[in-house]
C-alpha cells in the first residue's frame, strides 16, 4: 500500500492522531528506570543543602548557634534569616498576595518550618550538621483550630499587626486573612426563609496532601563567569518560577534558565515556591557552586503545600417535591501560618463558587473566610482545579442531605435538578458560564450500567438480613454527578502574580517532514509528549510518531503558565491546535503553488492538500515540508514554523457520573469497594487509553483521600501523619477495579472541543466514596459524618447508631 491506494481512514489511522489509543512514548524510559529526575542531576563540585526545622508549631526563635555545625569538616555555610535579610530574601511573596518567611525570622508558625539552611560538601555531612545547629525556642500558645483562631487573643502573624486591609480586602481579626463573597446574599436568605424545606449541614473536607512519589527539590547552579543562573527543579510552572526568581533575586530574567526535567508527579504540590529553592539559589550565588536540595518524605508531608482543609457550612432550600430553590455556603478555610494558596490572584478561594455543581440553582450565596493557624501553608489544588474538589464534595453531600430530609431517592433528586442540555451555555447563580453539557444522558447511562434499581433492591434485602442478624455487612451505594471548571484561564480574569494564564505552543516542521513542538506546560506524568503530538498529527497530517514534544526548558520553550488545574489540554492543547493550523494555512499556499492552482482550489484531506475535484492531484504534508525548505516560493518566507499564544475565551466544564458500591463491616469499620463505575465527559477524547489511565489514577487518589489519607495535627500542632505508615497512599492491593465509560459533549469554544480529564476522577471520586459510606448507614439514621472514613471513624458511626448491640 502507498499514498495512492490507502483509504483516507487508513491514512488517518497511520497518523495515530486524535482518538487513537497510542501507547505513551514516555514509558519507554520510565519503565526502564531511565527517567531523568532532579535527584539524578549531578554537577561538578555540587554542594548539598539541608534544613534545620522547627520541632514546635508556634515558638519564638531566641537564638541560633551555628558554631558546632560550622566546625564539622565539609560544612560550607549555615544560613539563617539574619544572613538573608541584607539581601531582602528572608521573606518571599506567596502566590496568594501574602508573604512567607524563607527562614524563621524571630518566630516559627508551624512544625517543620525552615529555621536554618546548612550547605555541605556531601549529603551526609549536611544531615549531620543539621543535628549540630543549636536553636533555642520559647514556646508560644498553639492554634490548630480555625474557629478558635478567629476568637483567640494570640497573634500568629505579628508582622501584620495593625494591618486591617489584606490582599483581598478587609481583615476582621488579627488571625483573619480575607473574606470572599459571591452571589446574592439577601436574595438567598429570602429564599431560605420562604422555602418548603431547608437542609443544613456542616461539611468538612479534611486537610490532606498531594504526596507526589517524587518529593520537591532543585539544583541551583550559578555560573560566575557568564553570570547565568540555571535552576533545575520539580516545577509545575517553570516560566513563572523564572519570573519569580528574577523578581525576588534581582538576577535579570534573561540570565536565568529554569529547567523542569522529568517530574515524578505533582498534583499541585509543585506549583508554589519553597524556601528550599530560594536558599539553594542564594547558596549557589554565594559559593559559585551548584547546590542541590531535595526534601525527604517527612519534610514533604509536613512542610510543602497541603490541600483542602475547608469547613463548609451549607444550607440548601427546595420545594417539597424536590426542586432546589437556593444554596447558601459559608466556608472557614484553614490556610496555616502563611497564605500560600496557589490560586489565580482574583480568586482567594479558587473556584469554590462552582459549588452549585451540576444543578440549576437559581439563587445562591457563598462566603469564604481565610484563617491563619499554626499549620503548614499551602492550600493547593491537589489534582483538581482550584478548590473545585471542595466545591464538588460540598454540593454532592448537600444533595444527599437534602434527599434524606425529603425522604427521596438521591438519584432522582439529582435528575430533577440537573441543568438541562438546552440550557447551555448556562449562567450559574455564582457567576460562571458553563460551556456545554448533557447531564441527563450521562446520568441515565450510568444508572443503567450499574443496574441502579437492582442495587437498591439488593440493598433493601441486605438491610433486612442485617436486622435479622444474618449478616454484619452493610451495602452502600455512592452517587456523584460532578461538574468541574478547568482550564484557567481567560487572561481578563485569571492571572498568577500578574502573569496572565494563557499558554503556548511552538511547532517547527523539519525538511524531511518530522517535527518538534515545544509548550509552556510541563508533564508530571500526564503524557503530554504522547497526546499533544496526537493533536498535531490530526491537525497537520504528520504521524504522531514523527513529532517530538519538549517542555520544561525556559530557554527553548515559549512562555506559559504551566501544568495544574487541568489547564494543559484546555489552554496549551488549544495553543497546539492553533499553531498547527497556522502551519496548515501556510502549507496550503505551498501546496497550491506546487500544484499550480489557486490557494482556494486545494482542500485538506487527512495528510495532504488535494486539488478540489481532482483528488489524485495532491501534495502530502511531507512533500510540502520539503518544499518549504528547498523552493523559493513567491510571496512566502522559507521554513515551516508557527507559534501560538492562546488566551481561552472561557473555562471548560468537564463533568461525569460516578457510582461506587461498597461493602462495610460494621464491627471493624473495614470496607471493600465492590464496584466502581466512572463515566467521564471530557469533550473530545484525544487518547482514550490515557484518559482511562488518568481516571484510574485519579479515582485511586480519591479513594485514598475519602477513606484514610489525612494530615492530622495534635493539639500541640505536631503532625501525626508524617510518614507513609500513617499517611494512606494506596498500593495495587488497596486499589479496586474500575469500570470506565464516557459520553462526548465537546466544548464549543475550544479549537478541538477538548475539556481536560486528569482531575475529574479526584473531583468526582471523593464524593462517590464518601456518599457510599453515608448511604450504607442512611437507613439507620446517619446524616453527616466527616472524612476520612478510616476504620475507626466508620466504626464510630456504627457505634453511635447503636449497631454494636
Amino acid at each position: 500500500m502507498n499514498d495512492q491506494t490507502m483509504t483516507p481512514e487508513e491514512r488517518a489511522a497511520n497518523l495515530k492522531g486524535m482518538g487513537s489509543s497510542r501507547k505513551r512514548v514516555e514509558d519507554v524510559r520510565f519503565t526502564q528506570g531511565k527517567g531523568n529526575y532532579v535527584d539524578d542531576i549531578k554537577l561538578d563540585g555540587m554542594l548539598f543543602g539541608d534544613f534545620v526545622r522547627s520541632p514546635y508549631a508556634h515558638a519564638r526563635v531566641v537564638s541560633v548557634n551555628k558554631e558546632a555545625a560550622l566546625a564539622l569538616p565539609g560544612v560550607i555555610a549555615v544560613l539563617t534569616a539574619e544572613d538573608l535579610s541584607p539581601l531582602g530574601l528572608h521573606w518571599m511573596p506567596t502566590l496568594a498576595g501574602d508573604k512567607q518567611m524563607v527562614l524563621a525570622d524571630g518566630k516559627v508558625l508551624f512544625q517543620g518550618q525552615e529555621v536554618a539552611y546548612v550547605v555541605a560538601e556531601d549529603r551526609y555531612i549536611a544531615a549531620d550538621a543539621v543535628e549540630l545547629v543549636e536553636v533555642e525556642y520559647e514556646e508560644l500558645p498553639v492554634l490548630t483550630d480555625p474557629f478558635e483562631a478567629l476568637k483567640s487573643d494570640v497573634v500568629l502573624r505579628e508582622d501584620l499587626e495593625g494591618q486591617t486591609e489584606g490582599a483581598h480586602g478587609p481583615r476582621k481579626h488579627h488571625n483573619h486573612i480575607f473574606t470572599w463573597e459571591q452571589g446574592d446574599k439577601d436574595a438567598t436568605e429570602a429564599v431560605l426563609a420562604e422555602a418548603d424545606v431547608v437542609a443544613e449541614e456542616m461539611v468538612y473536607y479534611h486537610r490532606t496532601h498531594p504526596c507526589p512519589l517524587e518529593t520537591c527539590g532543585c539544583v541551583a547552579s550559578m555560573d560566575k563567569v557568564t553570570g547565568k543562573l540555571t535552576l533545575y527543579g520539580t516545577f509545575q510552572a517553570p516560566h513563572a518560577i523564572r519570573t519569580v526568581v528574577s523578581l525576588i533575586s534581582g538576577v535579570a530574567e534573561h540570565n536565568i534558565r529554569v529547567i523542569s526535567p522529568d517530574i515524578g508527579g505533582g498534583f499541585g504540590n509543585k506549583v508554589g515556591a519553597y524556601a528550599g529553592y530560594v536558599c539553594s539559589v542564594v547558596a549557589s550565588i554565594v559559593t559559585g557552586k551548584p547546590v542541590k536540595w531535595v526534601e525527604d518524605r517527612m519534610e514533604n508531608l509536613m512542610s510543602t503545600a497541603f490541600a483542602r482543609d475547608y469547613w463548609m457550612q451549607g444550607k440548601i432550600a427546595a420545594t417539597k417535591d424536590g426542586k432546589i430553590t437556593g444554596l447558601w455556603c459559608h466556608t472557614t478555610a484553614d490556610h496555616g501560618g502563611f497564605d500560600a494558596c496557589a490560586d489565580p490572584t482574583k480568586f482567594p478561594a479558587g473556584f469554590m463558587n462552582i459549588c452549585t455543581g451540576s444543578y440549576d440553582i437559581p439563587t445562591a450565596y457563598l462566603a469564604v473566610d481565610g484563617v491563619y493557624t499554626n499549620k503548614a501553608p499551602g492550600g493547593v489544588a491537589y489534582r483538581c482545579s482550584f478548590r473545585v474538589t471542595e466545591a464538588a464534595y460540598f454540593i454532592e453531600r448537600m444533595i444527599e442531605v437534602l434527599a434524606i430530609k425529603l425522604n427521596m431517592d438521591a438519584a432522582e433528586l439529582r435528575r430533577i435538578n440537573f441543568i438541562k442540555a438546552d440550557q447551555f451555555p448556562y449562567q450559574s447563580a455564582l457567576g460562571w458560564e458553563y460551556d456545554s453539557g448533557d447531564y441527563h444522558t450521562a446520568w441515565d447511562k450510568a444508572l443503567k450500567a450499574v443496574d441502579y434499581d437492582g442495587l437498591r433492591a439488593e440493598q433493601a434485602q441486605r438491610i433486612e438480613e442485617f436486622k435479622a442478624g444474618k449478616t454484619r455487612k452493610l451495602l452502600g451505594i455512592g452517587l456523584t454527578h460532578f461538574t468541574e471548571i478547568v482550564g484557567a484561564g481567560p487572561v481578563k480574569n485569571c492571572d498568577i502574580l500578574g502573569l496572565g494564564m494563557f499558554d503556548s505552543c511552538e511547532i517547527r516542521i523539519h525538511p524531511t517532514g518530522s517535527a518538534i513542538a515545544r509548550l509552556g506546560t510541563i508533564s508530571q506524568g500526564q503524557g503530554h509528549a504522547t497526546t499533544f503530538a496526537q493533536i498535531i498529527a490530526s491537525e497537520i497530517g504528520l504521524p504522531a510518531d514523527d513529532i517530538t514534544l519538549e517542555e520544561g526548558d525556559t530557554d527553548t520553550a515559549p512562555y506559559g503558565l504551566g501544568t495544574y488545574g487541568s489547564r494543559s489540554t484546555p489552554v496549551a492543547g488549544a495553543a497546539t491546535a492553533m499553531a498547527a493550523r497556522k502551519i496548515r494555512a501556510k502549507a496550503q499556499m505551498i501546496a497550491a503553488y506546487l500544484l499550480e492552482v489557486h490557494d482556494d482550489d486545494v482542500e485538506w484531506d487527512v495528510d495532504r492538500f488535494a486539488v478540489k475535484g481532482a483528488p489524485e492531484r495532491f501534495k502530502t504534508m511531507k512533500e510540502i515540508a520539503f518544499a518549504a525548505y528547498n523552493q523559493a516560493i513567491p510571496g512566502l518566507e522559507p521554513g515551516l514554523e508557527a507559534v501560538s499564544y492562546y488566551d481561552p475565551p472561557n473555562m471548560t466544564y468537564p463533568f461525569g457520573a460516578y457510582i461506587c458500591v461498597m461493602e462495610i463491616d460494621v464491627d471493624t469499620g473495614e470496607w471493600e469497594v465492590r464496584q466502581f463505575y466512572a463515566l467521564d465527559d471530557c469533550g473530545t477524547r484525544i487518547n482514550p487509553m490515557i484518559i482511562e489511565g488518568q481516571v484510574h489514577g485519579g479515582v485511586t487518589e480519591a479513594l485514598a483521600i475519602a477513606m484514610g489519607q489525612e494530615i492530622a495535627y495534635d493539639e500541640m500542632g505536631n503532625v501525626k501523619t508524617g510518614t507513609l505508615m500513617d499517611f494512606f497512599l494506596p498500593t495495587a492491593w488497596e486499589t479496586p477495579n474500575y469500570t470506565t465509560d464516557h459520553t462526548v459533549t465537546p466544548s464549543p469554544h475550544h479549537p478541538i472541543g477538548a475539556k481536560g480529564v486528569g482531575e475529574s476522577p479526584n473531583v468526582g471520586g471523593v464524593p462517590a466514596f464518601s456518599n457510599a459510606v453515608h448511604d450504607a448507614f442512611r437507613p439507620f439514621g446517619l446524616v453527616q459524618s466527616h472524612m476520612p472514613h478510616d476504620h475507626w471513624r466508620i466504626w464510630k458511626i456504627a457505634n453511635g447508631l447503636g449497631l454494636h448491640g
Partner: protein
Amino acid sequence: MIPAGFEYHRPGDIASAIGILQEHGDEARVLAGGHSLIPMMKLRMAEMGHLVDLQAIEELKGIEVGADTVSLGAMVTQHELITHDGLASAIPLIREAALQIADPQVRYVGTVGGNVANGDPGNDMPGLMQCLNATFDLSGPDGNRSVAARDFYEAAYFTAREDEEILTRIHIPVPGAAVGQAYEKQKRKIGDYATAAAAVMVGNGTASVAMTNLADTPVWSEGASAALASGDVEGCVAAMLDAIDPVADNRGPVEFKKHVAAVMLRRAIDRAQSRAG
C-alpha cells in the same frame, strides 16, 4: 532520612559476632534484615557506631522440621517461612501469620529472628511465638541459654536478651494435626502493623491464645487459653480483654481497639475451631 555514620562489620561466625558486640558495648547492634533497624537509624531514633551484619553466618540459617519440633534459624527470612512446604504442613499458622506481615519486598529480607528480637509491640511474630510456646536460643559471652517466648518480652523494645547476646535459633513444638490454628489481623492497608491481631490454637482439649499490638508487649493469656480449652469462647474473650492494654494512636481510640480485639479474637477462634480435627 539520612542516618548518622557507622562502622560496618560482617563476621562469619557467632563467636566473632559476639566478640565485636563485646568490644563496642552499647555502641554496637546486630543487623539482620534491617527493616526495623534501618528506618530507626534514618529517623535518627537509633544511632550506633557499629553495625554487626549477621548475613554471612551460616549457623543462623535454615529451617529444620522434625516430628516433634521445628527449628528456625534466626536469619530465616519471612519469605522463607511462607515458601517452605514442610513448615507449612507442620505448623500452618506460621505461614498464615507471615503472609500478614508487611509486603513481599519487606519479607524477602526481614528475618524471623529480627522480628522476634526487635521488641516492637507491632511485630506479629512475638505474639505468634507465644501462642506456639516457642523457645529462643541465645548465645552470649557467657555461653548459651534458652528463654521461653512467653517470658521474653518485658516492655516495648526491652526483652530478656542481653545487649551482647545473639538470638540464634527458635524452637517450636509441633502442635499436631488435631489442633486447629488461625491468625486474624486487622490493618489499615498492606504493609501496616496490626490494629489488632490474634493467634489462636485450639483442639485436643488444649488451647493457646495470644494477641499483638494491644499492649507494650505481646499478650499471651493463660486465663484466656484455659477458658478456650474448656470450650468457653466468651470467657476466653473476656479474659483477653482484661489482659490487653491498648493505647490510642492513629489507628483509633482505646475503645475501638478493644472492640476490634474481641472481633479478631472471635474470628480467629471460629476459624481455628473449624480446622480442629
